[in-house]
């Protein structure tokens, strides 16, 4: 009797595997990535009596071939992962397709339990199963379950502990594939015997024989099996000729043959076959004419949900951080450790708080995504938008991330996880930040009214959004026809039946993403905020404070001023002090240094140093400008109006437009870069993205500014 067991949860996508996993492990899960790939790796722990169980949730796959990252991961885990028991989850309503994976799992010779999930759904559709016969056929116990309600999971636990307790575990039955095929497998097994790699000791030679026969790219390339490829090819041709089938797909052919034999006897379809609800919904939702309007409506609802519902909690978070800052500055005397005090209040609370404000947005967006994904609509959305996206070398699955990009680039980059093909995924990650995100909106809403007549304001805003989309699509087109050209993979997508996702799975998914975001806020963004605070504040000009204090004291001493005047002048002096300090600081100096480069694009040093702040987060651009133009608090209404007046006096509409273009086309924030690093798994990719965005932004601003100057468009000051 073992007291611990490691089991792997395997199954097709959309078979309800994750629901079973969540039910088994509760909240004791650990989420990470498989080394080297961005496929999610989930492990969980639970106990059945004294038995400690570790569950590995393998990615959902249709086959154990090696044609996608998910399949490779599942394949490797099963090959080398010391798995004691495989739980094969099967969508009972679609057993024939799901059992295809089962036939491959039996080859591993690892004890197996078949979980016929969603059995209620299948019975309702008129299917009835002879489990005894099927169980005998595959040599594995069968537990019918309903994952969403947890029905029969206690029987599953019992089967697991029974399998763990068995002295000689029951091995699955290897299917017979017909005389010639079996002969080929036998002959190849003998060749493999003794040659198979050491780390795969548990697996039978027969498994490798079949993989060789299948011409599996990875197994066939193993140096241990050198020379066996030709023999396998000979057998392949012989079988293909004999059975009149494709030699490339012969194992698929014979496997489906075996399954259809098993299903014909063990699964019967009652007379009363209810038309599937799913098909009726699809008739509308994926309709050639109705599909697009329905899709747009759904997206509108998602946006409504995310952005309007998030308003209140965002307000609460904001006031919470304001309260924190006020409390600290009240409790912490200004004289004690002034550097740390300022860093905590201005750097940490200002920076991290500014990012955490978006937490409700992210939470709700992921809730909406998890819901759409869980119901099965996401696949339809990809189906609907594919035609349009295909023109730019992408496909339907890239649409959702791009759309989310209008909200916030961070969840948008994370949402690219649904794209299987790595090239397509990287392309999408590359272009998503071009979509004008919510954080850029404050820049537009400050600049546009200051420089453009009322009748053109909406148009200018619209134009900026469109420019973002057009540049994103053109970049995709360019990347897909050069760097990320991919012919290797084909597009086949399953449209899973519509289902109501369980609350538990949605909440778990939401929590995972939120935890990731919080972790990032606590690390990368915290660090970046501190760095920015430092370059914004240091070096300090010595005597500056004393000089302004003296002037303020002088203002206070003038008895002829009214109380109001005194306050105004004091505020102005304080703002001027800040401005001068910033221009003396590292950020100010960098801004000046950049002026040489930025001048041809129409920017002066103030814009340059504001852009450094904007690099951390676009929201900071307005705040930085506010400091530089010494308007004090730019958040208050009068402050914003004041700043707009100042800007209109200093820049032409053309310059303003170029500034906005530049802000639109540069990387939105450090948080985005951190997300890109995580999702792409490479700093090089982050560097390339940063370089691309900066170059594009600079060139576009440069061209627009030079062309505008030449043609005298918007070159006159309006203020």
């Amino acid at each position, binding site marked *: 009797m073992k007291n611990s067991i490691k089991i792997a949860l395997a199954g097709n996508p959309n078979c309800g595997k994750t629901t079973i996993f969540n039910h088994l492990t509760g909240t004791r899960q650990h989420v990470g990535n498989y080394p080297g790939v961005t496929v999610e790796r989930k492990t969980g722990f639970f106990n059945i009596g004294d038995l400690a169980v570790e569950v590995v949730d393998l990615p959902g796959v249709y086959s154990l071939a090696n044609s996608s990252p998910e399949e490779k991961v599942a394949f490797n885990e099963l090959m080398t992962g010391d798995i004691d028991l495989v739980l094969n989850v099967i969508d009972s309503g679609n057993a024939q397709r799901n059992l295809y994976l089962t036939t491959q799992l039996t080859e591993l010779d690892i004890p197996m339990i078949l979980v016929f999930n969603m059995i209620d759904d299948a019975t309702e559709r008129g299917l009835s199963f002879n489990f005894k016969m099927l169980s005998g056929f595959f040599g594995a116990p069968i537990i019918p379950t309903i994952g969403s309600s947890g029905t029969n999971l206690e029987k599953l636990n019992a089967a697991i502990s029974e399998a763990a307790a068995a002295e000689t575990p029951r091995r699955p039955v290897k299917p017979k594939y017909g005389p010639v095929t079996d002969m080929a497998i036998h002959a190849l097994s003998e060749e493999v015997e003794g040659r198979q790699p050491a780390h795969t000791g548990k697996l039978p030679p027969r498994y490798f024989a079949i993989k060789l026969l299948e011409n599996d790219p990875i197994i066939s390339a193993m140096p241990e099996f050198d020379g066996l490829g030709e023999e396998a090819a000979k057998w392949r041709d012989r079988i293909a000729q004999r059975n009149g089938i494709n030699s490339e797909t012969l194992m*698929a052919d014979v496997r489906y043959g075996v399954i259809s034999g098993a299903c014909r006897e063990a699964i019967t379809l009652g007379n009363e076959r209810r038309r599937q609800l799913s098909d009726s919904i699809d008739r509308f939702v*994926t309709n050639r004419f109705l599909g697009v309007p329905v899709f747009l409506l759904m997206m509108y609802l998602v946006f409504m949900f995310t952005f309007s519902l998030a308003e209140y909690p965002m307000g609460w978070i904001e006031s919470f951080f304001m309260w924190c800052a006020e409390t600290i500055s009240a409790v912490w005397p200004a004289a004690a450790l002034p550097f740390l005090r300022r860093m905590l209040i201005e750097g940490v609370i200002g920076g991290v708080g500014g990012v955490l404000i978006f937490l409700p947005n992210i939470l709700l967006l992921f809730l909406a995504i998890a819901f759409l994904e869980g119901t099965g609509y996401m696949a339809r959305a990809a189906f609907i938008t594919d035609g349009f996206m295909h023109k730019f070398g992408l496909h339907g699955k890239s649409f959702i991330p791009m759309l989310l990009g209008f909200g916030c680039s961070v969840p948008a980059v994370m949402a690219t996880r649904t794209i299987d093909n790595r090239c397509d995924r990287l392309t999408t990650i590359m272009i998503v930040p071009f979509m004008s995100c919510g954080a850029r909106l404050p820049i537009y809403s400050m600049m546009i009214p200051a420089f453009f007549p009322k009748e053109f304001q909406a148009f200018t805003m619209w134009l900026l959004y469109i420019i973002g989309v057009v540049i994103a699509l053109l970049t995709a087109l360019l990347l897909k026809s050069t760097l990320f050209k991919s012919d290797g993979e084909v597009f086949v997508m399953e449209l899973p039946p519509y289902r109501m996702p369980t609350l538990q799975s949605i909440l778990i998914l939401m929590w995972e993403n939120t935890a990731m975001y919080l972790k990032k806020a606590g690390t990368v963004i915290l660090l970046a905020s501190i760095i920015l605070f430092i370059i914004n504040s240091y070096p300090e000009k010595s005597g500056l404070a004393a000089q302004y204090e003296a002037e303020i004291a002088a203002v206070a001493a003038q008895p002829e001023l009214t109380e109001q005047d005194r306050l105004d002048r004091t505020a102005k002096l304080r703002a001027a002090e800040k401005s001068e300090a910033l221009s003396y600081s590292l950020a100010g100096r960098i801004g000046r240094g950049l002026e040489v480069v930025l001048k041809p694009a129409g920017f002066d040093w103030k814009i340059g140093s504001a852009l450094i702040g904007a690099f951390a987060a676009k929201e900071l651009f307005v705040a930085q400008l506010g400091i530089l133009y010494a308007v004090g608090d730019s958040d208050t209404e009068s402050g914003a109006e004041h700043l707009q007046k100042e800007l209109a006096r200093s820049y032409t509409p053309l310059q303003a437009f170029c500034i906005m273009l530049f802000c639109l086309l540069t990387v939105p924030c450090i948080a985005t870069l951190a997300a890109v690093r995580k999702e792409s798994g490479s700093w090089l990719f982050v560097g390339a993205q940063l370089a691309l965005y900066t170059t594009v932004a600079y060139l576009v601003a440069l061209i627009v500014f030079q062309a505008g100057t030449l043609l005298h468009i918007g070159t006159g000051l309006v203020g």
Partner: protein
Amino acid sequence: MADNTISSSLEDYLEAIAEIIENNGHAHAKDIAERLSVKMPSVTNALQSLAARGLIKYSSHLPVEMTTRGSETAAVIRHRHGALKSFFSEILKIDDFEADGTACRIEHVISDAVLSRIVVLADAVRSRKDCAPLREYLDDAMPKVSAEGDDLAVIALDKLPRHVSAVVVSVDENLRGVKKFADLGLVSGTLLRVEGRAPFGDLLRIKVMGSSLSIRAGDAMHIWVRPVE
């Protein structure tokens, strides 16, 4: 009765002999060999078998003669052949050559019970007054069937009309990602149905083994199916 049954090839010989005698008055082994396009030794063999069963009189160098039983058997065979042939050519409107060949193959396996009913049906359609509209319909419809028959043959999946079920016949081996399609069940023998197309796109939505898949029309071009129903 048991010794009365002879193999289908012997039936062909007997039929040929009867026809040759009817045309020429007598039948030599050489004529028989020519008519059936077989070699002389096979003819000799067959004639000996027929003689052993008492259906013909045969000794080498003399023309073959029919016994009474032989003539009766030959008459039955020729009647069957004629009835089947006229059914194929006059009712089903199949051309003479194919009608003859098909009759040749079927006459050996068809039972008298089935054949006599076919004969009744054929006679009725041919001569009954109340069958006149049916005759007109057959004259009109049957020749078109062969033309439509080509449509029921194998077509590419992207040409399959909506909501028509079809069986996969073959998948081109040079289709990109052929294994992936096979893993999802697109192998010969699988039943599928086209459910629709994506808006302004080249994606097809197909139903395979209880699940909905979407694949590109460009890939569907390489999947050959035969419509059923």
